C-alpha cells in the first residue's frame, strides 16, 4: 500500500509534564524569509481586495455624489439604490431620477439563465474533455500525437473566425435566442480543457492503473474507477474555472440572445454602461451589479475549495 501524503510542519515541542520541570526550549524565531513571505502574501491580498472595497463603496453611493466626491473613502450619500437597480427593483423613472439606467431588470430570470448555461457548459465540457484527455494520455493509437497537436492548435484560433460561422450555424439549427444555443459551441470541448487534463493525467503515476489492468479491469473501467477519482483535484479545478469563464462570457451570449428568455446576467448588466454616446456609466448600478453577479461564483468556489484542498493524497486501491 502506498500512501503519499504531506505531513504538516509540527514544531518540536516536547510534551509538558505535570511537574513542568522540563524547561521548554525557546520557540524558534520566525526566519527573515518567513516574515518576508508573509509580508509579500499580505501585500498581494491587499492589492487583490482593495478594488473590491472600492466597488462596494461605489455601489453604496449615489451617482450624483460620486462625481462631486471622488475620493471619499466611505460611500457618498449612502444609498441602496445601486443594488435596487441591479436586482431590478426600481422602475425606469426612479432609475433615471437617480442618474442611472436599467430600471426593471429581470434579475432572477437572468440569474437562472446564467446558471443553466454555465452548468450545461461545465458538466459537458469537463466530462467530454476528460474522456478525450484519457484517450490522449493513456490509450495508444495511430495518429494520437498528431491529433493532439491539432487540438492544441485550436487554442490559437482567433475569436473572429469562430464568431460568425458559429452564429450562422446556431441560426440554421434554430437555436438563436435559446440557452442551448449559447452553450453549444463550448459544450463539447475546449482545447484548453483537453490540454490541461492530459497534462495532469500524464503526471499521475501509472502503477495503480497498471495494477488494475493486470487485475483484469477494462480500460473504460480504469478510467471511471481509477483515473478520475485520482484526478479529482484537477478535474474539479477545471470545473470551477470553466464555470466561472462561462458565467462571465459576454460577447457570444450577446450575439445569441434577443429576448429575456435567453439573456444571461453578464449581458444584462451591460445596461449600466453608456446608453447614449458620451453619457458615462451608471457607476452605482454597475458596481452593485458586479458584486451581485460575482456572488454565486464566490459561493461555488467556497463550496469546492475545501475539496480541492483536501484531496492531496494519492491513496492506493488495495
Amino acid at each position, binding site marked *: 500500500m502506498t500512501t503519499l501524503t504531506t505531513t504538516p510542519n509540527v514544531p518540536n515541542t516536547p510534551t509538558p509534564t505535570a511537574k513542568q520541570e522540563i524547561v521548554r526550549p525557546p520557540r524558534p524565531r520566525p526566519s527573515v524569509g518567513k516574515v518576508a513571505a508573509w509580508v509579500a502574501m499580505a501585500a498581494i491580498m491587499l492589492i487583490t481586495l482593495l478594488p473590491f472595497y472600492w466597488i462596494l463603496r461605489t455601489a453604496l453611493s449615489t451617482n450624483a455624489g460620486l462625481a*462631486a466626491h471622488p475620493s471619499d473613502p466611505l460611500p457618498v450619500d449612502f444609498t441602496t439604490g445601486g443594488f435596487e437597480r441591479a436586482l431590478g427593483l426600481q422602475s425606469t423613472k426612479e432609475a433615471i431620477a437617480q442618474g442611472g439606467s436599467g430600471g426593471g431588470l429581470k434579475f432572477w430570470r437572468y440569474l437562472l439563465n446564467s446558471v443553466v448555461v454555465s452548468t450545461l457548459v461545465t458538466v459537458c465540457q469537463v466530462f467530454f474533455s476528460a474522456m478525450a484527455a484519457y484517450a490522449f494520455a493513456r490509450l495508444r493509437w495511430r495518429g494520437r500525437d498528431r491529433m493532439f497537436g491539432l487540438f492544441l492548435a485550436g487554442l490559437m484560433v482567433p475569436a473572429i473566425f469562430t464568431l460568425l460561422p458559429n452564429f450562422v450555424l446556431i441560426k440554421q439549427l434554430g437555436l438563436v435566442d435559446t440557452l442551448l444555443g449559447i452553450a453549444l459551441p463550448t459544450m463539447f470541448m475546449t482545447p484548453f480543457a483537453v490540454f490541461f487534463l492530459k497534462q495532469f493525467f500524464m503526471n499521475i503515476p501509472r502503477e495503480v492503473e497498471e495494477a488494475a489492468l493486470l487485475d483484469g479491469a477494462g480500460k473504460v473501467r480504469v478510467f471511471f474507477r481509477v483515473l478520475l477519482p485520482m484526478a479529482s483535484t484537477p478535474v474539479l479545478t477545471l470545473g470551477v474555472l470553466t464555470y466561472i469563464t462561462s458565467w462571465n462570457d459576454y460577447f457570444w451570449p450577446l450575439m445569441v440572445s434577443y429576448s429575456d428568455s435567453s439573456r444571461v446576467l453578464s449581458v444584462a448588466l451591460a445596461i449600466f454602461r453608456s446608453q447614449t454616446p458620451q453619457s458615462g456609466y451608471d457607476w452605482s448600478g454597475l458596481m452593485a451589479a458586479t458584486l451581485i453577479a460575482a456572488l454565486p461564483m464566490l459561493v461555488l468556489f467556497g463550496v469546492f475549495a475545501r475539496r480541492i484542498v483536501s484531496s492531496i493524497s494519492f491513496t492506493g486501491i488495495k
Partner: protein
Amino acid sequence: MRFRTVMALTGALALSLTAGCAKDDSVGSASDTVTYWLWDANQLPAYQACAKGFEQQNPGLKVKITQLGWADYWTKLTASFIAGTQPDVFTDHIQKFGQFADLKVLQPLDDLDIDASAYQPGLAANWQGQDGHQYGTPKDWDTVALFYNQKMAKSAGLSADQLNSLSWNPTDGGTFEKAIAHLTIDKNGKRGDEPGFDKHHVKVYGMATGGAGDSDGQTTWSPFTASAGWNYTDKTRWGTKYQYDSKTYQSTVKWYFGLAKKGYLAPFTDYSDGANPPNVQIAAGKAATAFDGAWMISTYAAAKGTKIGTAYTPTGPTGKRATMMNGLADSITKNAPNKAGARKWVTYLSSNNCQKTVGSYGIVFPATPDGTKAAVAAYKKKGIDVTAFTRPVADKKDFSTFSFPITNYSADVYALMRPAMQDVYANDAPVSGLGKTNKQINFILGQ
C-alpha cells in the same frame, strides 16, 4: 466516480438541457408582431407609451421593443443582418446611414409619402440616399450648446447675457477665449488671464474636454469649424471629397486644441468616455463649461450641488453661430420579417400623435414641431430652459445648423480620423498631418 455524483451530474445535465431548449418568446414571428430596436434606455418608457397607442389603433398588432445600449447596439444590429435575425424597424443614426446604404440593408420608404414640411427643416432630406430614395422617417433631433456652472460664472463676473453673446476667431480667440480663460483657475487661485497663472497646475478648467472629436467633432470643435464657414465635404449631402485639408479647418482645430496648451481646455488625458465625460467633469467641479448635446440636458440638470445654465454656441468669423443639428430616424430593414406591420409602425412613429407623446416625457426633441413644443413644455415643467437648443433651429438669421457628414465609407473615415485627431490633441502632432489623412480618406471614397 461515485455513483451518486454521476447521478447528480446527469440530473443537472438533463435539467439544463430541458431548460436550455425551452423558449417562451419567439424572435419576431411574422404576422402579428413588429420588432423595434432603440438604444436609449431613458426613452424606453416614452416609446412603450407610443406602442400602446399604436396597438390600440391597430388591434391584432403588437410592438416588441428591444433596448440595447449604444456600446452593443451596432454590433448586434450588424450581426442580426448577417444571420437574418434583424428587427423590423430600428433607430438609425446618420453616422451609420452611409454605411448601411452601402450595404443595401435598408428598405426604401418612398411609398410612405413622408411630408418633409411636417418636420423641422432639413431632417427628412438628410435621410435620402444617393439614389434619391427615402430611407428613414424623422424621429427626433438634437443640437449642441454650451452648458456652464452658474456659480462659477457668477464668481468670474460673467452674466448669462454675456455668455450668450460670445464670439471667437482663430487669431486671438475673441471674447470666447477670454471668458474661458477667466473661468480657469489654477491651484493657487489665479485665473487664466491673470499674470502668474500656472498652466501646469490647473484646478478648474474653463472648458471641459470631450475628447479629440474624431471625424465630426460634434461636441468639441464643430461649433467653431462650422461658424468659420467650413463644411466636412464638398457637397452638403453625399459629397465625394472631405475637406480636412482646408486651411480654415486646420487653423480652427489648431486654435481649439491650442486652448489646452494654454491651460484653459482640459487636456486629452483628462477625458474618458466612460468614467469622465464632460458632464462628469462639470459635476465634479473640475471644469466650468462644456459643449454637449441636447440628449444630455436631463443629466446636467440632475447634477447635485451644481446649478447649470445653457448658452448659445459662440459667433464665428462668418458672423453667425453654428451648431450641429443631428436628426435620428427610424428605418425599416430590407429583409424585415413583418414588412406590412413595420410600415404601419414607422408611419405611426413619425406621426404627431406618437411624437407628442414622446415629447411629453421631456427626454428628446421629437422631429415634428408639435412634438418639439411638447418637449419644451415638459422641460419647462422640470425647470429647465432649453432655448439655447431650440432657437438655432428656428432662427436662421443668427444661427446656421449643419449635419453629420453623410457619405459612403463613413466607418473608414471615422477609423482614420479618430487616431489622427487624437494624435494632434494628445501627442502634439502638427495639424498639417491631417492633410495626409484627408488624402487617404478621399482615396477610399474615390474607389
